[in-house]
């Protein structure tokens, strides 16, 4: 997200440490990797992290196949990858359901598949699934907002939501978690605008939102990248009466939260560090090893990362994971 794109050494180290017992070089492993074209900071961080993590192992050969523009292109790319017979495939699908068939194809060809982030509906289509928690993000954001509003004693609060690309299922899950949790406290979203995960679309969605809601108490913005635009819109509209919660956990957002000089008071994580973990675990799977901190001899089948809430208080701990 920021101009200085330093390699994610911090994350690599951190993940490394967790798997320290398995760090010693073992059998040579070819990891095939495929993720959608990165037109967004988060996706870019996924690819960068995966690459960096693979580079940290001397026994890993990393083969990336970019997924192209859509699910169809990614399916074709996975086919090419399978025909090159890597030991394991790590993929972040355009859409889990649309690429389910590709996962199955690889598994049938005897190549274990590590699914990143977007679940396959079919359990036979993957060996390991590492997911962020989209629904949980909405839940976390709503909890924070409800707590703050309670603390401030606001009744009948006006809550705005700026979502990401509306046609994506993950956006729907996030919004659902948010709405469900607010409903438990008897609250609801007053207005919801969808943006496109880009700063300029965030700015426009936010401007529309502010125009529709002359007074706002709280806003959840799904994505910190588009949050840059949202904050710009806040300045341009000169609206400071509310507080905002972000999403994903970019470095800039964390810095802003720490500095505490904008309306952004918190962000709920959806960390691209999962890509680093995925590479480590894919290596273990290929080498037939387990996670050293677990008793099991094999890597588990599913890992869901918790969405954490970053506030001014704990921001310094998370800064190294920011993308």
């Amino acid at each position: 997200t920021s101009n200085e794109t330093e390699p994610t050494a911090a994350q690599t180290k951190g993940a490394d440490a967790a798997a320290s017992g398995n760090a010693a070089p073992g059998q040579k492993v070819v990891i095939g990797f495929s993720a959608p074209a990165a037109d967004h900071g988060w996706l870019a961080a996924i690819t960068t992290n995966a690459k960096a993590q693979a580079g940290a192992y001397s026994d890993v050969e990393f083969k990336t196949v970019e997924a192209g523009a859509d699910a169809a292109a990614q399916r074709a790319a996975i086919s090419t990858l399978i025909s090159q017979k890597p030991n394991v495939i790590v993929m972040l699908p355009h859409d889990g359901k649309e690429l389910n068939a590709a996962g199955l194809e690889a598994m049938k060809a005897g190549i274990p598949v590590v699914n990143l982030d977007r679940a396959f509906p079919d359990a036979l289509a993957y060996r390991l699934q590492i997911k962020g928690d989209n629904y949980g993000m909405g839940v976390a954001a709503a909890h924070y907002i409800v707590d703050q509003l309670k603390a401030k004693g606001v009744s009948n609060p006006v809550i705005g939501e700026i979502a990401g690309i509306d046609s994506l299922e993950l956006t729907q899950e996030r919004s659902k978690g948010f709405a469900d949790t607010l409903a438990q406290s008897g609250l609801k979203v007053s207005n919801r605008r969808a943006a496109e995960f880009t700063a300029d679309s965030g700015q426009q969605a936010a401007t529309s939102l502010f125009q529709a809601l002359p007074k706002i108490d709280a806003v959840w913005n799904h994505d910190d990248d588009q949050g840059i635009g949202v904050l710009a819109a806040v300045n341009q509209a000169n609206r400071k009466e509310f507080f905002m919660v972000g999403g994903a956990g970019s470095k800039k957002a964390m810095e802003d939260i720490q500095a505490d000089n904008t309306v952004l008071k918190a962000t709920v994580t959806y960390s691209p560090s999962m890509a680093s973990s995925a590479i480590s675990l894919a290596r273990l799977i290929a080498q037939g090893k387990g996670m050293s901190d677990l008793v099991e001899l094999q890597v588990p089948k599913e890992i869901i990362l918790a969405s954490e809430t970053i506030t001014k208080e704990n921001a310094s701990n998370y800064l190294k994971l920011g993308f």
Partner: protein
Amino acid sequence: MSDVTDTSTPERPAQLPAQSPPVDPAETAAAEQRAAGRLSWWRGESGEGARRNLWLIGVLVALIVIGIVTRPDLYGNSSWVWSNILVILKLASVVGVVSVGMTFVIIGGGIDLSVGAIVALAGVWATTVATQSYGAGGMIFCALTVGLGVGLVNGLLISYGRLVPFIATLAMLVAARGLAAELSDKQTQVSNNATINDIASTNLLGIPLLVYILAAVVIAGWVLLNRTTFGRRTVAVGGNPEAARLAGIDVKRHTLMLYALSGLCCGIAAIMLTAQATSAQAAMANLYELDAIAAVIIGGTLLSGGRGTIIGSLLGVIIFSTITNLFAINGLTTEAQNMVKGGIIVAAVLVQQVQFRSLTQFLGRNRLTTN
């Protein structure tokens, strides 16, 4: 016509037009004047463009009435109404600037699918660390140069390379977004330049600077199209390229300039959008090409070239952003918005045409009776 024609007969110097007005020129002119009235030299009315724009304004008014009906609470507040108008105009400003360039390209018989990509590339280039170190002037210069440069490449490919505009600019779309992603390393680049960022937040006399920029570009575009040889030749190049060529217009060079102009408008838009978002990234200005083309066509410009107005395009853009605003203040979802938007476009154009047809019929009937 004549009959027979063997011309050796000497007394037949000029057997022509029987009715050739023999002499007095003044009388001829007068007679012709009369004849003209009768002959109906003109089958239509001028001012079609103006009538069309009136119609667009009617659509706009209808949208506002819908807003008033659905949100009387907001529309009851006059300061809110004023700020809403400004929000709509600000929302329209970036696409508006792009549409001015697009109007020229389309009137000139082309199309530019790369405008969104040019905006992104120019914005990204202007916000690289290196460029930002030159300050606001450097950034603006960079954006304009990049826009102009890419436009020139488009123009060269199309005019001298003889590529179909659709293909050339589609390729440029793909390539420019790719280059922008490369340049920005796929990151969102934050603009740290206060002067640039202020462009989006400065107001003069209560009106945002962005709206002034839009107005300036529209006025400049209008003057260029309607009052200069460049604009008139654009109509000729788009309407009848062969005639333009025969009239001694360098059609290739002119086409080149049209795309360069569109690129330049994209450069201006890039600065405006970067200032608004205080950042730039490769995916910004997504699908602006569709927004701009749709606005231009709604505005009455022929996709086949040779006819169009700047004001119509502006109204088209404003109608679109008014629809967006209408949905936002009513809290409707984006897909409902999209569906209704599609419907409104169709309805607007359909009704506009019915309107025209019946108007034409009315005029026709009128003529017969007075005849």
